[in-house]
């Protein structure tokens, strides 16, 4: 009897021993075999990184004048995770904060919205982060405003105010340089998820445009990371690691702030002049390059705006006007993002092409009032005949009709509408050699390449538009079914993939489908000036550490050599000088003691403005000086600005007066282009605080 009991006891003992063995085995598996994995998991649960952004490097001009600095601001943040829980969803808090800060309720409302919460077209100024981090609504609170908020925490739940470092563009010389400098902004989810290998921390400020974007990895420095161990309620229990932030490197530019200021002012003045002459003058660009290196000494785009509006908290109205057609899209950098028909400034390229095709620069050419190409009459610019003239004179007075004949003859030689298997295409290949249709590679983001309308482009264009033109009657709106447009459509449908005689003729005078950015033209003229080297335009000169150690010094980069021999370049120098002494720009430059060589351009533009009016002509002036020993290339372009000489020519003349200190002006660059790096001492600029101007967008 007891044996049965003992037997059961033994069974149970074995069973329980096996349970204990199971615990041992499991324990071994957890702590020893799989221990490292769990240690890693535990660390992830317990540790939090507190990121202290590094102080951002300053940006200075060629002689050390700060163009971008940091200053202390007071940030006011609103915590959505707190205010969303209020009965009114935080409406009251937002409106009280708006009142205290003197802001529009709507602006503040949008700033506290996570971007996807808003309709797509109303997202400017929205918060690009998450709902769970305090959202900065202004960095420009005054002491009084901050105190008001902190002292009445019952009125402002979820609202906080604290000191913060903010980016500031001090405009010491009155320059904006907005499109060059760019701006900074908070890290967005898109930035965090990008695949370009850059890693950011959520609370860092990063470059969003311009140089701030281009050189962000240098300027930003390395954020300090303090790792703390937290408990389940996120309370810090201890600190495990602490790395100090490493301040960002400073950026020295080729740009001269004084010159930049002058160029901006002269561009604006030229636009005013265009307006006073009865033109629309909606936008423009002006560039000064060092022809010997490609260094960008000044680069302006109009309309512009105070770059500080981004950091100070952009208002909805400001944001809308930045991208509005009615205000001519101030956000757009015309110098590198605007493409225009270069018109007569293109004739330097046509001359080089003609020389390559066997035409002599010493010969004389007929300049009739018009040339018949097929059944179309191509008129000279002013429809006047100049008779038989030298090529130099033809360029000086900007004869178009002589180019029609040469371009047509060359087109025929290449086979016309039935092109030879390998046509010479002197005009296209020469333009390509001058950089047409190719980005210059300037150290700024979002540069466009313009357009070289060669045979390949034509084919691509046709592939895209064939369907439309071949079904024009069905596809085009009734208002666009005039006889002329119908004819053009039929032509495009028939042989839109071919370079037609008209295309070749238009190309030779920089019209038709040809588009250049002002910077591309400036680089081409700089190449002519320096004897043929096409440099990559470069805004940054050097990157230096805060202690002055040079991190990187940018050497001139050669993009290529223009397809023009010495004799051609020498001829171009003579001809471009003649433009200024006795040609189309003679009036604009009369009385300037510095010898300038240049070319006017007045480009026809097709299409309409947003209000339905026809687009006006593009006014160009491309130049270099001094003529005998070129140092600077200056290009100005005014969209819908009228004639090249009277609008842009005069503007460029004034810029030269400031560069050389003539005609009663004080030189902005008395020592020329500096050869050595400046020392950076922001302290000598003392305390400063530049407020957003009430009219942020210059008009």
């Amino acid at each position: 009897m007891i044996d049965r009991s003992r037997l059961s006891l033994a069974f149970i003992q074995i069973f329980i021993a096996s349970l204990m063995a199971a615990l041992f085995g499991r324990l071994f598996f957890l702590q020893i075999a799989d221990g490292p994995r769990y240690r890693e998991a535990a660390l992830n649960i317990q540790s939090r990184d507190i990121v202290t952004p590094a102080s951002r490097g300053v940006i200075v001009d060629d002689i050390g004048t700060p163009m971008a600095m940091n200053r202390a601001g007071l940030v006011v943040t609103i915590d959505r995770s707190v205010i969303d829980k209020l009965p009114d969803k935080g409406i009251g808090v937002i409106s009280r904060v708006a009142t205290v800060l003197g802001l529009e309720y709507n602006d503040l409302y949008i700033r506290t919205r996570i971007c996807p919460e808003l309709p797509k077209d109303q997202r400017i100024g929205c918060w690009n982060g998450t709902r769970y981090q305090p959202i900065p609504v202004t960095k420009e609170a005054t002491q009084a405003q901050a105190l008001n908020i902190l002292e009445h925490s019952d009125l402002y739940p979820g609202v906080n105010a604290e000191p913060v470092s903010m980016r500031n563009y001090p405009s010491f010389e009155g320059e904006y340089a907005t499109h060059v400098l760019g701006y900074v902004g908070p890290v967005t989810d898109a930035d965090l998820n990008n695949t370009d290998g850059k890693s950011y921390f959520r609370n860092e400020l990063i470059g969003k445009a311009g140089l701030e974007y281009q050189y962000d990895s240098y300027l930003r420095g390395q954020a300090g990371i303090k790792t703390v161990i937290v408990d389940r309620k996120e309370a810090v229990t201890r600190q495990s690691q602490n790395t100090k932030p490493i301040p960002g490197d400073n950026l020295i530019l080729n740009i001269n702030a004084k010159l930049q200021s002058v160029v901006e002012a002269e561009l604006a003045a030229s636009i005013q002049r265009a307006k006073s002459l009865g033109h629309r003058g909606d936008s423009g660009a002006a560039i000064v390059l060092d022809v010997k290196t490609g260094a960008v000494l000044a680069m302006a785009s109009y309309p512009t705006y105070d770059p500080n509006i981004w950091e100070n908290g952009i208002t909805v109205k400001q944001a809308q006007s930045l991208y509005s057609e009615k205000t001519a899209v101030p956000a757009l950098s015309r110098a590198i993002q605007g493409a225009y028909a270069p018109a007569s400034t293109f004739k330097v390229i046509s001359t080089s092409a003609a020389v390559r095709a066997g035409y002599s620069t010493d010969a004389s050419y007929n300049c009739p009032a018009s040339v018949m190409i097929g059944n179309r009459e191509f008129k000279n610019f002013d429809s006047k005949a100049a008779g038989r003239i030298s090529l130099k004179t033809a360029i000086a007075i900007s004869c178009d009709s002589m180019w029609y004949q040469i371009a047509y003859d060359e087109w025929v030689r290449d086979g016309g509408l039935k092109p030879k298997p390998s046509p010479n295409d002197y005009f296209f290949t020469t333009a390509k050699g001058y950089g047409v249709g190719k980005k210059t590679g300037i150290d700024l983001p979002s540069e466009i390449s313009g357009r070289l309308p060669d045979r390949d482009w034509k084919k691509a264009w046709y592939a895209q538009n064939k369907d439309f033109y071949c079904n024009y009657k069905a596809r085009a709106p009734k208002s666009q079914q005039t006889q002329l447009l119908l004819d053009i459509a039929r032509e495009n449908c028939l042989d839109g993939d071919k370079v037609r005689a008209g295309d070749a003729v238009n190309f030779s005078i920089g019209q038709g489908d040809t588009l250049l950015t002002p910077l591309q033209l400036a680089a081409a003229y700089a190449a002519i000036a320096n004897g043929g080297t096409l440099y990559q335009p470069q805004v940054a000169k050097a990157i230096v550490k805060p202690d002055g150690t040079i991190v990187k010094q940018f050497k001139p980069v050669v993009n290529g050599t223009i397809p023009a021999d010495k004799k051609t370049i020498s001829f171009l120098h003579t001809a471009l000088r003649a433009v200024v002494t006795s040609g189309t720009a003679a009036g604009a430059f009369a009385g300037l003691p510095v010898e300038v060589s240049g070319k006017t351009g007045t480009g026809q533009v097709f299409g309409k403005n947003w209000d339905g009016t026809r687009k006006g002509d593009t006014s160009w002036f491309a130049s270099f000086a001094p003529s005998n020993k070129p140092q600077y290339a200056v290009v100005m372009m005014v969209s819908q600005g009228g004639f090249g000489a009277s609008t842009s020519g005069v503007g460029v003349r004034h810029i030269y007066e400031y560069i050389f200190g003539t005609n009663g002006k004080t030189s902005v660059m008395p020592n020329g282009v500096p050869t050595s790096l400046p020392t950076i001492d922001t302290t000598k600029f003392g305390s400063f605080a530049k407020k957003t101007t009430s009219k942020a967008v210059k008009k």
Partner: protein
Amino acid sequence: MSMLSSRSRRDIRGGSRLMSGFDHWLSGAVFGLLAIGTALVYSATKQWFASNGLDPQYYLKRHLINIVIGLLLGFGTTLIDYRLLRAYTPIVWGLGVLGLVAVLIPGIGDTVNGARAWIAFPGGFQIQPAELAKISIIVGMAMILAETKESDHYPTHSDVVKGLLVAAVPVLLIVAQPDLGTTIIIAAAVVTIIGVSGAPARWVVGLLLVAVLGGFVAVKSGVVSDYQVKRLQSFVDPTADPQQSGYQLRQARITIGSGGLFGKGLFNGPQTNGRFVPEQQTDFIFTVAGEEIGFLGCGLILLLYSIILARAFAIARRTNDIFGRLVCVGVIAWFAFQTFENIGMTMGLMPMTGVPLPFISYGGSSMFATLIGYGLLQNVHLRTR
């Protein structure tokens, strides 16, 4: 004669010198666990209370008081010959049932973690009648199954039925709380006692089948409350309820796993100090051990449990008294299954149920009950010739 004298000598020694004649290996292992448990309870609560500006030794002090009371109860249990306890068994059983009834009355019973299992007393002390009911069920079952006509007979079917009735009343009351963990442990003890009693084997097989089917039906029919179903689900799939049960189980496993061979050192566990595992001074105290004293420390704990169980088996084997043996195997099953359930739960071997770790977890009722259980083992040992 010699039998008599040796017995009287034992009685005298037992009465005159504390713990003489005790199984010292058993006592040593229990005291080892009490010491480790004290350190772990202190570690689990020190930082938490200190950072809230409270007395960091609050739990330590109360735990020590519980141990002292528990030891007194345990020693008290050894004083009277366990065979005499039989006379008190109906009273012990009746008190247990009374407590279990009381706990279900709103106003008297406190609800913690979904189970109405506590009776609150003034001064912040709480009693969990289910813990003490374990003892009354074990002793009650042992008494009925041992009291067959005399030792020549195994329990009859009617004896087993009577025994089951004795167990069924408190078990049903515990199920009503509901306290799944305690129910499982009692069921295990009941089946073990019946098995060792020599009752027909078909009872053991039948009861095991009933337990499996019953558990299945209980879950499906909703007798088992939602939170218990969730706990079971998160055992099967830890991502099912990540914020609650799944969270706890995941955190427990991570905390134990991160301890490694030597652990982070007592009081130095970041997971413990961060209180990432809830209930870490009671049901999840093994995670503190896992993190802070590592595989070696935890191995020692398992070793001490093994010693206790081995000694208890030895006592059960040595006694010829069937009542004493059944009490022993009841206590063995209780300790073993509760330990396995608790540690297995923290390591992801068992579903989550709220049972404390014997001799280690903070908690008065459990401490009292387990030390009384220890007293019962020593009592049988003392009275075995």
